[in-house]
């Protein structure tokens, strides 16, 4: 099985810096902005983006954690996942909510996340930032901010590893090509 490092530690950091600047540019600062990371790795990326915004704008944005298990559309078709805690301790009404996840694929996770957010309030806007967009969408949902785009080939898999969860930072492609 071939393995290729697509992004290393430095490249991930640069990518997140760029995304952060794009977020601030598009929203003309960070007024009304709040960050919500999707479990598991989205939470760590959200924390990193929160740190970067703090350095640039000198402001600490509220950060929430979202577990989408209860909203999955394939819940009883797969091995039952353990439901983890959702922890959003701030009001999302009339806020710009930036959803953050590591990899975007079919779009079904984001559909579930949007539904979950709607049950918690009525945000002014929901935006989406992902580190890797691997294409192959099954729903008409697209990220506002994407680190890299990589259309995945047959038999390939793209893996995001973050040091908080996996011991080191890297995005690797494993597979036949």
């Amino acid at each position, binding site marked *: 099985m071939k393995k290729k490092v697509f992004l290393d530690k430095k490249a991930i950091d640069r990518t997140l810096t760029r995304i952060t600047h794009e977020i601030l540019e598009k929203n003309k600062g960070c007024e009304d902005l709040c960050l919500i990371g999707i479990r598991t790795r989205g939470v760590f990326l959200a924390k990193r983006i929160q740190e970067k915004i703090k350095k640039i704008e000198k402001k600490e944005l509220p950060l929430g954690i979202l*577990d989408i298990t*209860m*909203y999955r559309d394939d*819940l*009883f078709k797969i*091995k*039952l996942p*353990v*439901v*983890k*805690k*959702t*922890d959003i301790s701030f009001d999302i009404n009339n806020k710009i909510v930036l959803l953050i996840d590591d990899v975007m694929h079919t779009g079904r996770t984001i559909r579930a996340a949007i*539904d*979950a957010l709607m*049950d*918690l*309030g009525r945000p002014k806007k929901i935006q989406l930032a992902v580190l890797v967009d691997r294409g192959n969408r099954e729903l008409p949902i697209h990220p506002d901010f994407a680190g890299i785009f990589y259309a995945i080939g047959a038999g390939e898999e793209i893996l995001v590893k973050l040091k908080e969860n996996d011991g080191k930072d890297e995005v690797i492609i494993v597979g036949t090509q």
Partner: protein
Amino acid sequence: MNWTKKDLLEIKDLTKDEILLILETAESFKEISLREIKKVPTLRGKTVITLFYEPSTRTRTSFEIAAKRLSADTINISASTSSFVKGETLKDTGKNLESMKPDVIIIRHSMPGAPHILARTLKSSIINAGDGAHEHPTQALLDLFTIKEKKGKIDGLKIVIIGDIMHSRVARSNIFALKQFDTEIVCCGPATMIPPYIEKLGIAVEYNINRAVKDADVVMMLRIQKERGRISYIPSIREYAILYGLKKAHLEKAKKDVIVMHPGPMNRGVEISDEVADGEYSVILDQVENGVAVRMAILYLLTGREQ
């Protein structure tokens, strides 16, 4: 850790890992009841029937709220309004209900083992909501959840259970659950209400309430079940209240951060005094609140089990 059991019939056949999985899952579900919109779509399209052959407010309402907050459809049947009064057998009632394709049937019955009969007969998941003096598994699980929430742990605690241990399904389920952990369990009550050979389970027996509650982390009170004629086991309610009713003075001998539990409904002035029931150590209403989260977790795990 995956859930594989079709039914929840008794604590006795749960492993420690299964108990921990229920408690962990319940933690995630608790937050839903604190939202403005108290509903998630998780069990959309599932049907839950509560079949109660005994009166209940708390347990039935708790199960119904739990199912509804998960978007399941719920139907409540109580014995007084069912074909039970026309003489239909439990098996027949179960089979007829099953023909309408429910996913979960929650049953309370005065006969121990009634849920087990349904579980063997039907494909639906069966939850025991109390079977006679046998078990009341969801009560024990919500009690453990409350202990863990208040104390941050279950291991290492001294837990005192006071009352009619012999006839209490709550005590039995709690003992089996607590024994899975590293706990010191003390049972206290009149000799007529302590089951023989209980010491063989590694449980201490103490007939004096003052000695029993000494250094306790948790005091769990049981209800005197007047409706089941349990009065015949004691000389009088008045004497029981004097000797075994929990009063504020008793708690001075317990740990400073002791918690007092009661499965409800309370006989105020009998097994528990007003000042304790409404006092600072009481977590009785927290138990009720946590009951919803624990039952949501159980419904989720049973309907999504690995098949």
